């Protein structure tokens, strides 16, 4: 998002410390920030912490954002840094299990389907968790946010070649470890 019109007003409001403007910004980006944090950490509680830290950081340093760059890129840098910080602090990222508790509430007809989906999801998430941080964050930005190589390179401050090689290495690991899900995806072309 290159800031225009209302977005620019919201940003200026945030710079002035206007809580309403900040609420607008929060509502616009909370899902994206939380999703990156969740997919990176694999833990809902940790994702909450990372998201909270990211928005608090955003509040304190929004004046540093000049408005001539992509706001999303700037915001994603904050999230990525928070993710890597949490990782460096040595916290254990637990597998995503919170979704399973939600199954209790769904109807019996859909339980099996949801259970399978949750199992798949958990499995994919667990395998993603095994990736080294620099490969994992590239995977999250690529598949959760759908960023291009160039956009990922901007966020991470590296070259597109580096992004490509990290993705390539991550793909190889994921392909090997998720091969048991290949048929269920229905994407086998052998």
């Amino acid at each position, binding site marked *: 998002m290159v800031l225009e019109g209302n977005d620019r007003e919201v940003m200026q409001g945030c710079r002035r410390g206007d809580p309403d403007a900040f609420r607008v910004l929060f509502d616009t980006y909370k899902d994206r920030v939380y999703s990156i944090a969740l997919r990176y950490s694999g833990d809902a509680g940790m994702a909450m912490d990372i998201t*909270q830290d990211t928005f608090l950081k955003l509040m304190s340093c929004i004046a540093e954002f000049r408005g001539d760059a992509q706001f999303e890129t700037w915001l994603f840098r904050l999230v990525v840094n928070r993710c890597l910080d949490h990782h460096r602090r040595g916290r254990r990222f637990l597998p995503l299990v919170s979704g399973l508790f939600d199954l209790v509430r769904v109807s019996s007809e859909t339980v099996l389907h949801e259970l399978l989906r949750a199992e798949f999801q958990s499995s994919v998430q667990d395998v993603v968790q095994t990736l080294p941080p620099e490969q994992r964050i590239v995977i999250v930005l690529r598949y959760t946010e759908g960023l291009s190589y160039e956009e990922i390179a901007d966020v991470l401050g590296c070259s597109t070649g580096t992004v490509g090689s990290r993705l390539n290495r991550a793909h190889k690991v994921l392909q090997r470890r998720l091969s048991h899900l290949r048929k269920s995806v229905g994407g086998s072309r052998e």
Partner: protein
Amino acid sequence: MNNPRPDELWLDPLLSRHLTRVSAPDDLWRRIQDSPSAVPASPRRAIPAPVYRWVLTTAVLVIAVAWGILLRSEQRLLTAREVALQALEREPEDLDFRSSTGSEIRTWVKARTGLEIPLPSHAAENVRLAGACAVPGGSPSIEVAYRIAGRKAALVVSKAAHHDAGDKHRFLHCESVGSARVSSWTMRGQLYTLAYQNHGELRDECLLCHNGSDPMVLRN
């Protein structure tokens, strides 16, 4: 660039499907609000970037101007020092205006350069005025040659780089150069540089302007 090979095509949709975006929990905003470091009640006003730039530019300009003044002042000091040392070597016949009377020299200097030299009408007993000479250059500058107890001395006077309206001497510099000694000070917006043959006592050379009864010699 790094597109998946055909046998990897199943991975892309799998990852896209299982790493999708999710909704943030509803209580996230409340958590942020409850945080001690959340938005302050009376928000601090952010200083816009142009103000920073303006402050920075002003600071740089002030430093540059101050540096320029300092440099100019230092250059004047150096120039006056050289002129005074050269004047010490000058013979009376090389002077632009030869006179042994303080008032005559003062009038000539005033007419020639506009500078005021506080020469008394009657010099002290040991002082023998030789005359004055205009110093070529941009700003008006003058040298007064004299002898005291047989020793040569020269006083170079020019406009000071920064105006010092006080009557007191503000000494800037004092050094020995070979057998000579050079002292400089500012007073009433003028820079004074005195060169004299080093004999360990400055007081005699001060008699050029302070004719013995003036207590300023001792105070300054």
